[in-house]
């Protein structure tokens, strides 16, 4: 039964974080609002991946596959911005 409690807590957490991200935008924090939105979205996706998609219970192989994908995306985004920022 513990898993049900966890699911309810994660669901409520996700709803609250959505409220928070809307509130942060309404406050108009300038350039920080973008960073805030991305950070909150990342916390939410961490919760979905770990708790709903059960990534934390998966085999190491699947965890590594995910991390390699994330690393590829990071390199892709990083190199693109190096290009356009210093062009």
């Amino acid at each position, binding site marked *: 039964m513990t*898993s*049900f409690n966890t*699911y*309810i807590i*994660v*669901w409520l957490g*996700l*709803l609250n974080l*959505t409220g928070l*991200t*809307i509130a942060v*935008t309404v406050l*108009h924090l300038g350039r920080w*609002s*973008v960073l805030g*939105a*991305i950070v*909150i*979205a990342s916390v*939410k*996706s961490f919760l*979905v*991946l770990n*708790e*709903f*998609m059960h990534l934390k219970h*998966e*085999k190491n*192989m*699947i965890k590594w*596959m*995910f991390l390699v*994908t994330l690393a*590829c*995306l990071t390199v*892709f*985004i990083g190199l*693109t*911005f190096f290009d*356009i*920022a210093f062009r």
Partner: protein
Amino acid sequence: MSTALLEHRDDAGAKIGMWLFLLTELLLFGGLFVLYSVYRFRHPGEFHDGAMELNLILGSVNTLILLTSSFTMVLSIAFLRLVKRGASLLALAMTILLGLLFLVNKYFEWSAKINHGIFPNSPELLARSHGEILFFGLYYVMTGLHGLHVVIGVLLLSIVMVWMVRGKITPDRDIFLENAGLYWHLIDLIWIYLFPLFYLIT
């Protein structure tokens, strides 16, 4: 018993295959996010104006709908494991219903925009600045591709539901439900990033 032994089945392989597919989906949307970021970096003002025109209420409601549908999805799997087939089917039906509700909202959102003359290549949009044309182009492509995933997800979950009713999916044979659930969560995951980037940035 002998037929059960002859059955070819590899749940671990099926799950790895599903994750591999989902990771390619992440790269697909990741590419679009990079495109969005670069254009936003070049046209900050126009992207701000474009985002102000989107319906924040509809976007927020759809976020709550998708998050809740992910919750009912995990409940469906958890109930099946407890051999509560009725509750599992009910949770699955709710997930499908919430997915359809998301699409209904999307329909109203898009038709409102189209009625205002804002759609790709419309005279109204082409008269605007380059940055705003890019913003609305990306808006239609990214929410459209995401919406297509919701449509496929709803169909997939409906097939899984039929299989469950017919007894093809059982508590000790739930990989179809689990993999369909993974696909549904990925749709939620992508929306978690689409929502702030299109509706909230100011």
